[in-house]
């Protein structure tokens, strides 16, 4: 088999890693670290990563186990590995220092750094504190925080809002003070972007700024939560997790013309505030609900977003298995916050999750089949009925003609033509709009796959949930889904609360929303997280209620301004003494520009769109197979979440601004800051067109007269707030510069306003305004939610 050369190498490596020890000169050992060592943070990962694989419970090399303190002290064939308090005399240290190549550990090229050895030394010198075992499920279950039942922490006194009570108590402990509330213009923009993904219009800003009623803020929150754009905004977050795309992926990357039905389902479900437990069950097992509706079946599209490989010569079973693996990994990631996918080929390195348990989860999904179902759109049934009647009538006519021809004994060639017409017509049978769903298929046994290889079957396993978590009773996908959102499962509520929180603060209370396991970050505010998890679950899993809870806190409403001192003290804003500025997501960047310019087409839902794309992008797909036929109607100005996502050649604007490649589940987007982003904002056709339209808008605005007023109006369309005098001054100066430069070559300048030249305006004047608006759309503040 093709593994043989590697297997041979592996064997050689195995033989070489016998753990024997001989002392080397202690003076040459790397010095012990001076820091106070924390076993969990500093030592356990080292042992887990470098030692326990060969020196664990399973056939320990050299008879040495390094998976518990007692075992390490007992030692292997050559005696104790540790001498507590005396690192220089500990064989473990001599081995990992690697002074003697014969006994150097770990084997191969994976040596520890001097700093890591120093940490191990310090740990031994400080008493080799070590609770529990490594990779032992029972021991980890007892200690790791996220597997424990969700606590019901008491709300600290001192603040009216529970969120603030927890945050302020912590700040007080650290000797810090929260920031003052942000000004109203910032607040309304922040809230609008967070809840609907669209910037407020200047009118909406004014309405809120001037609303003196006591409940002005709550009214604003309620209005935004009720907006149909709320569903679009939060659907996009969810679609990242669902690795939504409009094509198969892999070489052929065939289009999925009905993928959008799932996207529409998500938007609608969020707008209807479908409780998160139902939201979960319908997406994972809507097809298995009693009397499942078409909508519930469409919901199962969640797991149809896996890739499909139609490359010639592939083994279909290999990629069926790959899709099921992805369904397991994604489910683990999204609801449990665990990297269960790591256990596909071997026991999880850090978390109490064995390879066998991975395949027990796999078994829940292994018998499913992919079903493309007829899912008529509202009103479509009538259309179909009419079309079917017309189709049937025509078919009957054609068939009759054939019969008549036969009876009349016409020429064979003529008869053939008539028969061909019947066949051709039959291909035109009317069909309903489809949806991609998951359905239960024929039962298929599940085996552990040795090293994750679908051709190497191990023992058979039955559906089951990981033993570290409370048991699930059932064996169906529906029961798995219900178990995920059950009161006993400590993870889903915490993971979901944290995921939501991260969208409002730029960082989760657990800063690794994708990993609540041993290697993940510990919560910065563990009591607050548990309190929020309860609030979410006890609030009937209503996401809207949960959002409202968070955004009405003073913690959320704080200013995001930061002093150099505060930045030094808490650069990542872990303690929440301020709000966090965040660069907008890719789709929002485009949405904001279109909104500011007035070009945005606000229609909610529908098929994916293909706005103008630079030449040469679709050509990157396999044999230039993905054609990009530009949308020509108003839909080309729809929001960014509707842009057709071709996996092997994604819309460049999206990837430039860190939209995920949608091949795997993403629960946290990167926020990079690159020169290509600058070029995109400066020159990508959608931003240029937005600048042109915004320029036209302010030039034709009868309520804005004179440069200063117009500059201020454009500024407000872009940023919501009014400019400060220094800003107005600089912009007016810039406008003058542009006028001079445009006057120098009026013929050239006439090209700048494009199709949005205001009627009657002189070309250099119109050009100067476009250039000015383009500068506004390139401000850091424009692309940032403050």
């Amino acid at each position: 088999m093709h593994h043989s050369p590697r297997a041979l190498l592996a064997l050689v490596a195995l033989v070489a890693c016998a753990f024997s020890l001989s002392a080397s000169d202690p003076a040459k050992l790397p010095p012990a670290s001076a820091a106070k060592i924390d076993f969990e943070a500093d030592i356990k990962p080292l042992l887990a990563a470098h030692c326990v694989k060969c020196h664990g419970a399973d056939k320990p090399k050299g008879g040495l186990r390094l998976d518990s303190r007692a075992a390490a002290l007992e030692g292997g064939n050559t005696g104790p590995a540790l001498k507590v308090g005396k690192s220089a005399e500990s064989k473990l240290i001599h081995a990992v220092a690697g002074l003697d190549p014969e006994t150097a550990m770990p084997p191969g090229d994976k040596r520890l750094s001097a700093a890591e050895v120093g940490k191990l030394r310090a740990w031994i010198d400080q008493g080799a504190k070590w609770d529990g075992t490594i990779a032992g499920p029972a021991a980890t279950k007892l200690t790791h925080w996220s597997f424990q039942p969700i606590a019901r922490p008491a709300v600290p006194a001192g603040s009216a809002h529970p969120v603030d009570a927890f945050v302020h108590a912590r700040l007080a402990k650290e000797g810090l003070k929260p920031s003052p509330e942000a000004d109203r213009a910032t607040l309304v923009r922040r809230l609008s972007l967070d809840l609907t993904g669209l910037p407020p219009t200047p009118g909406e800003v004014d309405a809120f700024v001037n609303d003196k009623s006591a409940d002005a803020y709550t009214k604003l929150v309620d209005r935004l939560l009720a907006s149909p754009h709320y569903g679009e905004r939060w659907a996009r977050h969810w679609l990242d997790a669902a690795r939504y795309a409009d094509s198969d992926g892999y070489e052929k990357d065939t289009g999925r013309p009905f993928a959008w039905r799932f996207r529409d389902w998500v938007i609608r479900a969020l707008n209807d505030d479908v409780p998160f437990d139902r939201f979960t069950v319908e997406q994972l097992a809507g097809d298995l609900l009693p009397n499942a509706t078409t909508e519930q079946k469409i919901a199962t599209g969640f797991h149809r977003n896996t890739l499909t490989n139609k490359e010639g010569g592939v083994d279909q079973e290999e990629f069926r298995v790959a899709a099921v693996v992805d369904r397991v990994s994604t489910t683990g990631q999204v609801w449990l916050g665990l990297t269960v996918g790591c256990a596909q080929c071997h026991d999880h390195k850090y978390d109490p999750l064995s390879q066998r348990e991975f395949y027990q989860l796999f078994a829940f999904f292994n018998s499913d089949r992919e079903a493309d179902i007829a899912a008529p759109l509202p009103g479509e049934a009538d259309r179909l009925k009419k079309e079917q009647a017309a189709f049937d009538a025509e078919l009957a006519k054609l068939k009759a003609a054939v019969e008549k021809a036969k009876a009349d004994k016409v020429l064979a060639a003529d008869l053939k033509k008539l028969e061909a017409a019947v066949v051709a017509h039959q291909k035109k049978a009317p069909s309903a709009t489809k949806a991609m769903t998951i359905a239960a298929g024929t039962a298929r046994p599940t085996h552990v796959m040795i090293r994750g290889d679908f051709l190497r079957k191990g023992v058979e396993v039955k559906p089951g949930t990981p033993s570290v978590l409370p048991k699930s009773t059932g064996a169906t996908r529906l029961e798995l889904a219900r178990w995920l959102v059950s009161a006993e499962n400590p993870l889903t509520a915490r993971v979901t609360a944290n995921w939501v929180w991260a969208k409002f603060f730029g960082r989760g209370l657990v800063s690794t929303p994708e990993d609540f396991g041993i290697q993940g970050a510990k919560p910065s505010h563990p009591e607050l997280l548990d309190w929020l998890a309860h609030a979410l679950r006890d609030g009937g899993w209503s996401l809207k209620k949960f959002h409202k809870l968070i955004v009405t806190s003073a913690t959320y409403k704080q200013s995001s301004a930061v002093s150099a001192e505060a930045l030094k003290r808490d650069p990542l804003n872990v303690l929440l003494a301020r709000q966090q500025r965040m660069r907008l997501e890719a789709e929002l960047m485009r949405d904001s520009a279109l909104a500011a310019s007035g070009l945005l087409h606000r229609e909610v839902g529908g098929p994916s769109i293909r706005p103008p794309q630079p030449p040469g992008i679709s050509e990157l797909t396999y044999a230039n197979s993905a054609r990009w036929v530009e949308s020509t109607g108003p839909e080309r100005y729809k929001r960014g979440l509707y842009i057709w996502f071709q996996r092997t050649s994604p819309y460049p604007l999206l990837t430039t601004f860190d939209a995920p490649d949608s091949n795997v589940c993403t629960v946290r987007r990167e926020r990079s800051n690159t020169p290509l982003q600058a070029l995109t904002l400066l020159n990508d056709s959608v931003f240029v067109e937005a600048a042109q339209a915004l320029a036209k808008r302010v030039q034709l605005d009868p309520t804005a007269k004179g440069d200063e007023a117009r500059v201020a109006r454009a500024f407000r369309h872009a940023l919501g707030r009014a400019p400060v005098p220094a800003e107005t001054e600089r912009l007016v100066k810039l406008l003058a510069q542009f006028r001079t430069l445009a006057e120098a070559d009026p013929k050239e300048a006439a090209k700048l306003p494009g199709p949005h030249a205001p009627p009657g305006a002189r070309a250099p004047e119109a050009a100067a305004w476009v250039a000015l608006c383009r500068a506004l759309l390139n401000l850091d503040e424009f692309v940032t939610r403050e």
Partner: protein
Amino acid sequence: MHPTREALERSRRDFLTTSANGVGLVALASLLEGDGSLRAADAPNPLAPKAPHFAPKAKNCICIYLEGAPSQIDLFDPKPKLNELHGQKLPDSLTKNVRFAFLQKDTATVLGCKRKFAKHGQCGMELSDLLPKLGTVADDICLIRSMHTEAFNHHPGQLLMNTGSTMFGRPSMGSWLTYGLGSESKNLPGYVVLNAGRGTSGGTSNWGSGFLPSTFAGVLFRNQGEPVLNLNNPAGLSAAMQGATVEAVRDLNGIRHAAIGDPEIAARISAYELAYRMQSAAPELIDLSKEDKKTLDEYGIDRPEPDLKAARGGGKGQFRAFAANCLLARRMVERGVRFVSLFHASWDHHSNLDNELPHNCLMADQPVAALITDLKRRGLLDSTLVLWLSEFGRTPLGENRGGSPNVTGRDHHPFCFSLWAAGGGIKGGQVIGKTDEIGWSVVEDPIHINDLHATILHLFGMDHTKLTYRFQGRDFRLTDVAGKVVKKLLA
């Protein structure tokens, strides 16, 4: 001075010297006040050069990727035995547990090789008659005949070669290198991609940054027209207007920074300045008019391109595109670009092998050899690693897809294939590894793709086990959990 620190100071100095008005100076003052907060970690340029783990041999890499799997049997690994066995079946013991993409193993027979092989250079490296020009630099290249992989479909295979894993979402080689080392280039991206031919199976996933920030993704350049997407200003907006724009944006961002203190604003200012510099640097880069005629001729930019009725290689115009890409790769290396990727698709010769492979070789042979000669003449080869890669090899059996008796090509073959490397600390003039007499399996010095990656990182002064990125609770590497530096490759 620490390199990132230096970059920060530089950007701040630029800010001072280029900001011509009072508002800009106010912004600058606030940046300087924020000095304590703008630590190295917050430095505006994540691509600032960083020190490797140990002294490197290579500073830059040109990675020529021939997508689709060129036939090693017809180019690099002579197997005279195949002509003896032509038309015969192979023993079942050999094919028993083997999966093929298209080949029907019950009826498949050995396909002989029409190529003539000759020895080249002082080292006597045997190469096919399709690569005469490459033969002139045989003493500079190290040919590996013992590569093997576990992927045998194109997209997973390309992911493995370019990212070290058949799974999606991993960073490509160039991303890892620029993440680890930054870039010397001040006006161009650190990782550039050039394409010729039809689209590759892997598309953009071959040069994506995976879970690394998009800062480290390959930037696609085109060899004509607008060299980088969105590089050109909109029609009617002059260079002077663009200058005024960038300056005003910087000033206005400075005002906001003074009010709100977020260091991210400083990073954005610096990104805009690099974008602005790139607007003049990139067109200068792709402008070949300053190259002398001798150079252009050596690369064969304006060679005649024979007609070939086959879409697989991308159709007419690829000779010029590929040659220009090779020359551009040298120009990029001269300007400090860390990693240049050249893709050409496709070499997937399931059929028509004896017409299409010569055509592709005619396209690639001259410019690739010229690139090596040119780099050497300019003293750049020692520090520039040149790679010739693909995802797997091709079968000694003829491909009889659907049981067809009309056999004119070869199927995918992962058990052995050939690649070569030159320059950048590679020991040239040698052949590494052996395959059996029918080119079925490796019999000496097996090298896995993870080993190749470990060796490439080693040449750049990086320990492949230490170049890691924490993602989903795990420290990921280009070499995943495997890889060994192949010492024989090193000079």
